[in-house]
């Protein structure tokens, strides 16, 4: 099938003067911030010449809550609930990214089982986030039943997380040095059951979309980004891999023991919306694989610790707080004045949107000097003009959907 052919012809001065609806004067359109297809409160200013977009300009900041500044006045441990609310479709992933940065700064080693649980949580979060991408993008392009199918699967993940953490969203279950609680056998069973059924569900999604002509026509050769451009615009994650660059932090700079897991990095060839979709679908399959391996390892390490034994940073067990003076003192010290050593650290993780990085600077006191968040979504938003300029307006929805950002982390 021939790729979409579309030639833009600028309007002539006479046409602009005329009443011609297609080649008349430019129309200024403000898409958002309440537009349902902008996935949050993104405003995009567009000049329309007929149906063609010009001077596309995304405007971010409508969801700015000052998270980085908040960190400076809250302290190290109390910022965890705030990281949940950055990219709110994958709270545990953000928790882990922040925890890893702090651990790097303080030189804390997470016990093996803690790392396995983290990998498991990250992969499950990635699946949940990709399901949101798929569901919302599909409903924006008209496939309503896809939305329900995806959310049905996501609901299963949330029930499992509910059974594990006690919350469906905003879990706050990661601590400096590990995770708060162990994954017990009941949750393990639920996870296994879900992961075993999930590949069939992905096949179902592909039945609905991959060969669907509407989906195909609206995504194929739309929003092409070349590898060089992708690199120049600092895109990461599925958007970069869709353009054909096999860069994945889980392989390039492994953390939490990712080097021990067997999985493949999915890359595209063309770099259009269709490739990004295929990459994400493949990533869901790979995530299922990793999560399955993590479950097997959990079985092997049953009874291990999930939280490191480092009295300077980790709250002592409650039992001992009640009975021993030493632990009581540490309880007070850690809650009121948790200090991290002087220095700075950056840790990036491969979140579902790209490289999610936390850069923390400490002067040795209990308050951070700086906590910078490298949110992949912001870079994805910045690529919108590159992909959208001189294209038809109806492609905008496909482009926004395929870049996959969450405004909570873009504006933070």
């Amino acid at each position: 099938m021939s790729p979409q052919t579309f030639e833009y012809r600028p309007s002539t001065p006479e046409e602009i003067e005329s009443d011609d609806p297609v080649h008349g004067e430019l129309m200024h359109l403000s898409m958002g911030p309440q537009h349902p297809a902008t996935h949050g409160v993104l405003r995009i200013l567009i000049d329309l010449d007929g149906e063609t977009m010009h001077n596309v300009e995304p405007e971010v900041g409508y969801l700015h809550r000052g998270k980085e500044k908040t960190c400076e006045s809250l302290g190290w441990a109390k910022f965890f609930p705030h990281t949940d609310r950055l990219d709110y479709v994958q709270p545990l992933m953000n928790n882990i990214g922040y925890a890893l940065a702090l651990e790097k700064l303080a030189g804390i080693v997470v016990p093996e089982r803690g790392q396995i649980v983290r990998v498991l949580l990250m992969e499950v979060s990635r699946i949940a986030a990709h399901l949101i991408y798929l569901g919302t993008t599909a409903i924006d392009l008209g496939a309503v039943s896809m939305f329900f199918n995806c959310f049905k699967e996501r609901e299963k993940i949330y029930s499992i997380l509910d059974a594990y953490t006690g919350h469906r969203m905003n879990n706050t279950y990661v601590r400096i040095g590990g995770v708060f609680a162990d994954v017990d056998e009941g949750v393990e069973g639920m996870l296994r059951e879900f992961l075993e059924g999930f590949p069939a569900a992905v096949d179902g999604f592909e039945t609905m979309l991959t060969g669907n002509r509407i989906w195909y026509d609206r995504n194929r050769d739309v929003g092409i980004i070349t590898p060089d451009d992708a690199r120049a615009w600092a895109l990461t994650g599925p958007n970069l891999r869709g353009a054909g660059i096999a860069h994945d932090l889980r392989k390039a700079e492994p953390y939490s023991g990712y080097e021990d897991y067997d999985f493949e990095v999915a890359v595209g060839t063309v770099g259009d919306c269709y490739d990004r979709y295929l990459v994400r679908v493949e990533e869901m399959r790979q995530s299922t694989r990793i999560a399955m391996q993590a479950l097997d390892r959990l079985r092997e390490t049953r009874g291990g610790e999930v939280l490191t034994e480092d009295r300077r940073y980790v709250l002592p067990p409650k039992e001992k707080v009640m009975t021993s003076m030493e632990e009581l003192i540490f309880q007070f010290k850690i809650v009121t004045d948790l200090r991290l050593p002087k220095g700075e650290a950056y840790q990036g993780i491969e979140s579902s949107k790209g490289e999610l990085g936390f850069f923390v600077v400490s002067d040795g006191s209990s308050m951070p000097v700086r906590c910078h968040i490298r949110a992949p979504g912001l870079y994805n938003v910045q690529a919108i003009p590159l992909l959208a300029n001189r294209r038809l307006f109806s492609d905008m929805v496909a482009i926004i959907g395929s870049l996959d950002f969450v405004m909570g982390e873009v504006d933070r």
Partner: protein
Amino acid sequence: MVIVKRKELSLMERLFLPEIVRALSHSFRAIFQPKITRQYPEEGLPTNEVTRGQPRLTLLEDNETLACVSCGLCEVACPAYAITIDGQETDRFIEREPERFEIDMLRCILCGFCEEACPKDAIFMSDELELADFTRAALVYDIDKLKRPKAALQKRIDYFYKVNDRWRKSSSTS
């Protein structure tokens, strides 16, 4: 590295109508799958001891006095600044008790840090989730609204101790 396979549409797929039938059959099959919609609020949310609902204060065995000693740790640990405590002296053995203990439920994010911080088993997350009222002031819960007999929270307390049982092989300094 796995390169994703771009599909070329076959003639059938390009004709579109057979594909519609195929996708519709996929959708129609969903009719016969078990329903997953929960009829909230008629059908309540299932809760158990893992559920982190609103924090509640535990009473001692006599069901009258709070276990809290007004140490202020939960107030410090709260990332949402939801807790306000004023302490006072008491004749009881513990010497201090809260005169005023308020949790602003509108601020509380149910994170559970207070529960973790408390050194006296005085505050725990209950399984109470629903929260609605007509005024903001009514949602700033005081001691009367927060206190619960220990028996009501016992399951959560047991669960909390279970997951908190860490450093089992530890060589305690005490």
